[in-house]
């Protein structure tokens, strides 16, 4: 059936388009154009200081797949993402369960827990570098005092310490996100469920596994996907803590892109890394977007 829209309907549509126009313009200029530009650049060799380039086709990609650098960075990215995300989840869920209880000064406790998430990564890194300091850092002092180590430890300069430290700091900075998300969900679980389970004779542990965890499942899936995406692309924290060192042992993909573009001055190669990194992330992004779409559909 041919559909004749009413004048009013067309006027509303025009107004809607006018209102979204600034967004579309800005998106096109600063996101869509650069995105395609990045793909385009990845087929070139660009020398950063002069910005002169030549078409090299797929050779950047060929080189990338053959180079150890890429696989090393991918491995590091995965170790960092999985390690940090697991800790965020464990601490996050645990802390949420604790804060869900009626502890003293709960809102103060919640603020203190939340704070690391909102402070600048620069601040977090400076503070942790001071804590990690080999000569005067409080961490070394405490560890020696307790007797775990005899000599000050090098937290960031050797492996596997550096990776562990980065993962720990990442977990500390980002676990509050999990806390808040889980806490919000916990507060919406009806008490009636727990009362029913109590009447049925379920203990605290049974109640956690039979009620809390299933109720949290959906929000946890969302958290895992979002945090996986965000951790995967994390740059600031790792760059500032270790700069990728020692010897590229904590160099993740975003750091590699930066290094290629602005230290090794090869923007074409850097773009190729960035594009491949985006393709890997695309898997997660599509899963997440699909899920959001489904949520909105229902």
């Amino acid at each position, binding site marked *: 059936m041919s559909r004749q829209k009413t004048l009013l309907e067309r006027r509303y549509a025009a107004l809607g388009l006018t209102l979204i126009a600034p967004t579309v313009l800005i998106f096109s200029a600063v996101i869509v154009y650069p995105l395609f530009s990045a793909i385009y650049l990845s087929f070139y060799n660009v020398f950063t200081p002069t910005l002169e380039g030549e078409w090299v086709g797929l050779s950047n990609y060929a080189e990338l797949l053959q180079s150890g650098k890429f696989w090393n960075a991918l491995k590091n990215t995965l170790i960092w993402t999985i390690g940090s995300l697991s800790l965020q989840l464990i601490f996050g869920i645990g802390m949420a369960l604790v804060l869900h209880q009626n502890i003293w000064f709960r809102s103060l406790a919640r603020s*203190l827990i939340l704070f690391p998430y909102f402070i600048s990564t620069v601040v977090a890194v400076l503070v942790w570098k001071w804590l990690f300091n080999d000569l005067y850092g409080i961490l070394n002092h405490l560890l020696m005092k307790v007797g775990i180590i005899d000599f000050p430890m090098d937290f960031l300069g050797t492996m596997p310490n550096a990776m562990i430290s980065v993962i720990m700091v990442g977990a500390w900075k980002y676990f509050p996100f999990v806390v808040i998300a889980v806490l919000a969900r916990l507060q919406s679980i009806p008490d009636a469920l727990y009362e029913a389970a109590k009447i049925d004779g379920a203990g605290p542990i049974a109640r956690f596994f039979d009620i809390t965890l299933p109720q949290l499942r959906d929000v946890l899936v969302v958290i895992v996907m979002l945090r996986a995406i965000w951790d995967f692309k994390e740059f600031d924290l790792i760059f500032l803590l270790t700069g990728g060192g020692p010897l590229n042992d904590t160099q993740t993909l975003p750091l590699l892109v930066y290094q290629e573009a602005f230290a090794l001055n090869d923007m074409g190669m850097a773009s190729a890394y960035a594009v491949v*990194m985006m393709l890997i992330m695309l898997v997660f992004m599509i899963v997440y*977007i699909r899920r959001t779409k489904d949520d909105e559909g229902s």
Partner: protein
Amino acid sequence: MLTFRKILFNLMAWSIVLAVAFPLFWMLVTSVKPGFELFRRPPTILPETWTFEHYWKLLSETNFLIYFRNSIILSSATTLVVVAVATLGAFSLVRFKYRGRESLAFLVLFTYLLPSVVLIIPLYLLLVGLGVSNTIFSLVIAYTTFALPYALWLLRSFMAGIPEDLESAALCDGATRMGAFRDVILPQLLPGIISTALFTFILSWNEYLYALVLVNSDSSRPLTTGVMNMLISSFNIEWSLLMAASVMMSVPLIIVFAFLQSYLTRGFGAGGVKG
């Protein structure tokens, strides 16, 4: 009645909370200790002598104030532009019907998840090409790449939470679409706008990568790269000074935490978690 178990549980809970907060406590303590006390073994938990000399030095002998001003201008400008554009955009995405609306909404979500490093090279080239690199303005442009999708996604979700009937009622009562937006939707959206503005401001305040790549003059450097520079460029690292800088850098955040925290948690519910 306080049972033994309850006290034990509280003590345990609070020791974890304090452990998590310890780095921040240590930052504060370090910033008010005199230099020589830092190297005391064993370290003093609370400063024996309180001093604000580091803060004084920070403000008078370093570029900190310039960076601070730059950050304020940068974050405010980004927030203003992004929230204004995103509020109208979210209204359009939620309450209007036209071709491509759905795809646009998911393009927003996609860009919200996009890594900065993918965009940074072309953006760098673009801004250099436009001759605006090394300015605060160039950072405002760059920051919209992450702030606009974020704000749009957040506001879209806040907007969807406003009952459609309210707007319908205003239309029946004689308002135009934009009249209904101003009279009815905007007042309802205000808490969401505040939340979004706070998040956008904090995101911009904390941004590091774009600032690192796009700006390398002290006159337009924001706090993040500015303070980091103080660490790298100084021959002898003055931790007290850096901790004082860290504290000062967190001041806007502390203000938000003290007075507007509910808006932050609201924003979490709207955009961060639900999608």
